[in-house]
């Protein structure tokens, strides 16, 4: 799908330029924007190195594990189908805390582990279980504390206050996550109601 979107953006742009007479601007844009993207990616190194370095210390210091313990009672309520001492819950908690701190690379394998455990709980069926969908929703709403990459981009473009967006972003994430959980419940009850 993304391949088609990408092709369409470039193709529509070039065809439109044929008629609007902006071909010179398009020609220039191709090369300047490619160069711009490289500068940006290189510039992002600074914030990503700093943040991932800090997070490694946090991980070793047990801050992530401590938070996972703190959230355990809440999360086990969100997943009523998972037994309280099941390993699935542990993986879910580690995945969510890793995501909160923007450790996408660490979060993904933990998330897959959590999904595998939930599949076992669901008799290895190839149908998504209720808990799997809830977990997916929590991941797609992306509960992030600090949006590091966005801050990095804002710094690159000389924002007066690159971190100004942190508070609002956090608020929006929370709204999205709560809304996601409510929507998940509604869909779930609708599906059980239809069956009975």
């Amino acid at each position, binding site marked *: *799908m993304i391949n088609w*979107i990408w092709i369409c*953006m*470039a193709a*529509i*742009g*070039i065809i439109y*330029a044929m008629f*609007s007479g902006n071909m010179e*601007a*398009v020609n220039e844009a191709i090369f300047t*924007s490619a160069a*711009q*993207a490289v500068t*940006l*990616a*290189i510039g*992002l*190194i600074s914030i990503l*190195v700093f943040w*991932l*370095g800090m997070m490694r*210390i946090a991980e*070793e*210091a*047990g*801050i992530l594990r401590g938070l996972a313990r703190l959230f355990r009672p809440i999360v086990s309520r969100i997943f009523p189908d998972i037994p309280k001492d099941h390993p699935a819950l542990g993986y879910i908690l580690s995945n969510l805390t890793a995501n909160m701190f923007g450790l996408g*690379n660490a979060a993904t394998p933990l998330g*897959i582990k959590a*999904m*595998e455990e939930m*599949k076992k709980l669901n008799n290895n069926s190839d*149908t*998504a279980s209720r808990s799997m*969908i809830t977990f*997916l*929703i929590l991941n*797609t709403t*992306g509960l*992030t504390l*600090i*949006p590091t990459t*966005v801050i990095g981009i*804002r710094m690159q*473009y*000389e*924002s007066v*206050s*690159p*971190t*100004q*967006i*942190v*508070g*609002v*972003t*956090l608020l929006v*994430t929370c709204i*999205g996550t709560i809304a996601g959980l409510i929507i*998940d419940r509604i869909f779930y009850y609708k599906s059980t109601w239809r069956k009975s």
Partner: protein
Amino acid sequence: MGFISLISIWMIPCFILIIMIAASIRKLPAYNLFVEGGKEGVKTAVSLLPFLVGMITAISILRSSGALDAFIELLAPVLEFIGFPAEVLPLALIRPISGTAALGMTTELIATYGPDSFIGTLASVMQGSTDTTLYVLTIYFGAIGIKKIRYALQAGLLADLIAILAAVFLVTMMFG
């Protein structure tokens, strides 16, 4: 407004302080760990590079040709009616589909309108506040071989829609 921006400014330094205190209590080789973790940051930035070049170039072609502005102008009257800024519509549409594409679009919006403009702020918040639904779904359900996804996609996209509307509403209130 005052409280939220106070959180924005204080959160990161305070968090770093907590990490430092925790590291010294546990007697960790904090600096060595920092360097070790930081290496991963270089990898991440470099692996982002081709995605960003591809996406930002395609979007720049679309914008410089005038096609993007024509599209926005076409939709603006309808969207303005509900208070939705037409400039961020392409970003809102692509956010659930591809994370790197959205990152490219956010960058392009920030570059075009400025990071502290209303559009730049809104784009930043949209990019930062949700994750890529389609990607998460493909990776996780693909990895464990789920074929019947039931209501997962509908629920995920609906949650995205609410997050996007919340972003527009809150950013308009605080920065508009």
